[in-house]
Every structure is written in structure tokens, then in C-alpha cells.
């Protein structure tokens, strides 16, 4: 369907009226999985990656998370419900005491966090974990 400017305004007004308009567009589950496959070069096996995150985050602007995967050289973090799924990638070396790192991220709302680890032997592993967000981030 061709979307005209007029249609877009009408749609935006309609959404705003029912209080639905908060974020421009959310990355879909498909976009997230496409990013996972592109990064991993296929579908990673589930397990072997730990995601530490609060079950409920009161403020989506700063959510502490920790990821770890024994033997990983890289761990990528994705947020399936943000406007863009990408969050960041940690790179570990021989001088890393362990393949574990923490940071603080933005979450637009309640959603799944996905972590994909690249192992030293070339295999890939992934995990996902839901975080409930009371107030969304991204300045919505």
C-alpha cells in the first residue's frame, strides 16, 4: 500500500488520540533474529550464555546488565523491543580474566534482551531474557 503524507498524519493523529504513540518504530522480532543470524553466520545454539539483568527495571533509561559466556571471544547484546535492536558488543582477549562484562543500557519498554556469544572454537551460542520496564527509555 502506498502511504501518502496525509495518511501518515491521519494515522499518527489516530494513534496519539488513543495514547499509543510513544516510540517512532520498534525493531521487530524478525529484525532482531536477522541481526543475530548475520552476526553469528547462522542460528546459534541456545544456552552457554548468561544474562544478568533485573526482572523489573523501574527506569528504562539505565538498566544494568551483565553477560558472560565461558570461552567467548565476543558477546553481542540486542534489545528486541528498541527502535534498533543493536546495543553493543564486548570483545575479550587472552588477557581477559573471564569472558564477562557489565554495562548499563536503555530499554524502550518491556522486552527480551538477547545475547549472542562467539566462541574461541568458532561456534556461537545465544540466550534471551525478559526485562519488564516500568518507564521506557529513549526519551519517549
Amino acid at each position, binding site marked *: 500500500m502506498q502511504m501518502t503524507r496525509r495518511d501518515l498524519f491521519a494515522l499518527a493523529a489516530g494513534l496519539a488520540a488513543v495514547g499509543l504513540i510513544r516510540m517512532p518504530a520498534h525493531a521487530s522480532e524478525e529484525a532482531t533474529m536477522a541481526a543475530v543470524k548475520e552476526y553469528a553466520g547462522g542460528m546459534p545454539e541456545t544456552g552457554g550464555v548468561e544474562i544478568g539483568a533485573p526482572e523489573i527495571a523501574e527506569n528504562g533509561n539505565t538498566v544494568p546488565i551483565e553477560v558472560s559466556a565461558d570461552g567467548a571471544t565476543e558477546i553481542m547484546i540486542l534489545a528486541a523491543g528498541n527502535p534498533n535492536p543493536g546495543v553493543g558488543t564486548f*570483545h575479550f582477549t587472552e588477557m581477559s580474566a573471564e569472558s564477562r562484562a557489565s554495562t548499563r543500557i536503555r*530499554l524502550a519498554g518491556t522486552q527480551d534482551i538477547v545475547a549472542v556469544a562467539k566462541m574461541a572454537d568458532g561456534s556461537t551460542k545465544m540466550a534471551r531474557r525478559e526485562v519488564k520496564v516500568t518507564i521506557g527509555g529513549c526519551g519517549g
Partner: protein
Amino acid sequence: MAKIKPRVKVPKKAKAGEAVTIKTLISHPMESGQRKDRKTGELIPRKIINKFVAKYNGTDVFWMDMEPAIAANPYVEFSVKLSESGTIRFEWTDDDGSVYDIEKKITVA
């Protein structure tokens, strides 16, 4: 804009081969490029730190690629194991190409 100031927590001394936890923080708005100016309604241009690197005596020991979903004032915690005394250097690269850095010495026994 507030001054961009890196802060790191690194032990002065470490035992060879033992895990050393490093905590880093830098004051930066991490403007996501998704926010709109409240007055004009225009998108505020993206300006984030997109890369963080830790080097020990010149060798990369840990690095991170960052997207706009990293919270303002990016915090990163990781661990290293060291075999010799030296200097750990941290570098944050901004979208505009600026590099903010800080160095700390570690004595390894």
C-alpha cells in the same frame, strides 16, 4: 554541554595471573538520535561514544562497540589478568571523532 570526564576504578597493585576488576565511567549524554526537540519538534542529531578500548602497555585487552541503546554516562565493567607491571590506558571514541582518554599505573607482584 557538560564537560566530558572519564572516571575509572583500577587497583594500584595486583597479583600476577589473578583477576583484576576494572570499572569505567564517562560523563556523556549519548544522544540517541531518536529524541525530538520539545520546542521545534526536530530530531536531535545522534552523538554517542561508539567505541571503548582498554590497552595494557599498548596491547588491546578489551574493547566494546556501542550503539545508541547504551545508557547515558556509559559504564563498563570487565576483568583482566596481568603478568607484568604497566600502564592501562582507556580510550572512548565519540561520533565526531574526538577521543577521550585516561591512564592508570598498575604494579604487578
